[in-house]
């Protein structure tokens, strides 16, 4: 269950200019957290900026009770968090519905690893992230590696330039095959990471996990629909309460009956089935 804790920051780093990695001590939060979930953090003591900032969980160390968040400094709130001096942090979490696991195997539904009749898809997994959207995927990849599935998982990472491929090294160390794309061509494919995804989908993966800026996710969803591959995307919306009460973080989705409706990114998401989100 989610909880409210005021706790100690154990480390703060700047993995690249304009990005911040904070680690804090919260054992029960670390135990409960699932990949794709987020924590809701106060930026300071005063009333300006007023609202908490939802930040996805980047990594947990359950043995030592540590949680890591990785975020981009984009405004006053995140700037305050990045330099909050007193060494304490006010955190609510874990919140939201994260990535579902085991989907690829279910879609494959064939223990021999051969393509199931009808779908033609394998049990392979693709994890695709762009920009700061890679933050929660790192946690997901930790879990995938922990369950011994790194061998059948391909990781695609996109960033503006080589210096901002934030999780590349860490993910390679976990044993994943990583392909990268940069907007400026300083590393890997010159262009959006969705270009790599289009190629990878030709190998009929069983499931795709994605997180990144909205235009990227829109393309991801279109590519998945075209290829007939199931997947999940983690969306970002402006959020106030974080617990499902205020209905601020409305995400437009198509329900089972095909009707468009709003769901709350904070409790119904932030991870949604790729086929449900209306862009």
């Amino acid at each position: 269950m989610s909880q409210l804790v005021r706790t100690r920051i154990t480390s703060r780093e700047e993995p690249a200019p304009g990005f911040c990695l904070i680690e804090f001590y919260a054992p029960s939060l670390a135990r409960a957290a699932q990949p794709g979930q987020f924590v809701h953090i106060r930026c300071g003591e005063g009333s300006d900026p007023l609202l908490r900032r939802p930040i996805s969980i980047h990594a947990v160390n359950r043995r030592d009770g540590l949680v890591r968040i990785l975020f981009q400094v984009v405004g006053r709130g995140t700037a305050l968090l990045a330099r909050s001096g007193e060494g304490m942090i006010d955190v609510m979490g874990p919140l939201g519905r994260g990535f579902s696991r085991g989907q690829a195997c279910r879609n494959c539904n064939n223990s021999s690893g051969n393509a199931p009749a009808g779908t033609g898809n394998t049990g392979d997994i693709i994890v695709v992230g762009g920009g700061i959207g890679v933050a929660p995927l790192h946690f997901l990849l930790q879990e995938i590696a922990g369950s011994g599935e790194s061998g059948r998982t391909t990781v695609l990472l996109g960033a503006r330039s080589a210096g901002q491929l934030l999780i590349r090294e860490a993910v390679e160390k976990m044993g994943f095959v990583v392909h990268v794309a940069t907007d400026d061509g300083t590393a890997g494919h010159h262009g959006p990471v969705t270009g790599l995804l289009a190629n990878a989908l030709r190998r009929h993966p069983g499931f795709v996990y994605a997180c990144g800026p909205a235009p990227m996710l829109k393309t991801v969803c279109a590519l998945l629909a075209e290829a007939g591959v199931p997947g999940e995307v983690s969306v970002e919306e402006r959020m106030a309460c974080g617990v499902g009460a205020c209905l601020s973080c409305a995400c437009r989705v198509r329900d089972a009956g095909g009707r468009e409706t709003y769901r709350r990114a904070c409790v119904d998401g932030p991870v949604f089935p790729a086929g449900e989100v209306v862009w």
Partner: protein
Amino acid sequence: MNLAVNLGGIKMKNPVATASGTFGFGLEYQPYIDLQRLGAIIVKGTTPSPRAGNPPPRIAETPSGMLNAIGLQNPGVDRVVEEILPRLAGLGTPVIVNIAGDTVEDYALVARKLDGAPGVVGLEVNISCPNVKKGGIQFGSDPRSAAEVTRAVKAATGLPVIVKLSPNVTDIVAMAEAVAEAGADALSMINTLLGMAIDVDRRRPVLGNVTGGLSGPAVRPVAVRAVWQVYRAVSLPILGMGGIMTARDALEFILAGATAVAVGTANFVNPRATVEVVEGIEQYMRENGFTDINELTGLAQRNVAGC
């Protein structure tokens, strides 16, 4: 020490309620607080039919405040009565339902369906939502329309009726007098202030709805002033709200004339805000030698010469 108050026939064990729209249907905050500690829970605005709400973005942060334009998203009164209220009824905390509609008949219909619903001790009539095209604020800015809605709701229910006033009027006292005359049992004030924000980089309004309602500490002085003015003119009990973050903020409203208070936006910042306000009021009373919260209502009025 007595913290209990009577808000127009609604008995509350302490003067602290949750403001409509900020507390969902109550259960969302259960992981963080004991809901039984609350004086009352005021649940989300409820309309005759389900409403999808406004397109996102629905909120924008502003200096010491926020704009919202949710657009009265709710599952409709039938589902509220059948599915949501029964879950709240077991809590032992009085539930007040905020009601809204496009027409006078809408308000009466919702009121009728809520009459006798389990756990419901009163209705808060939302004639002040700035975020829907019809209804809402249009009833809240004209004294005659406000009185008409009040009369219709009173005729449709045996429950105490609180009318929620908008600050987006020239003369809030005239509005209060009109709904008092029409039979309101209490007044709730204030709803949000109409505002807007523009994204300078994208050169367009931030909110999908263009305009929204401003809440948070930024609006508190406006709200305290409104309570002060209305308390002097109208004898109905007042539920004061607008940017209450702490017990001291709540006490400003009570000293200005509020019988009870509601905590809204603060829930987003501190999910324990309501309970901390209750505890802080108790501490203030102990430290200052008060034994009954009702002694504090309007006390600041009596300390002003010539008032």
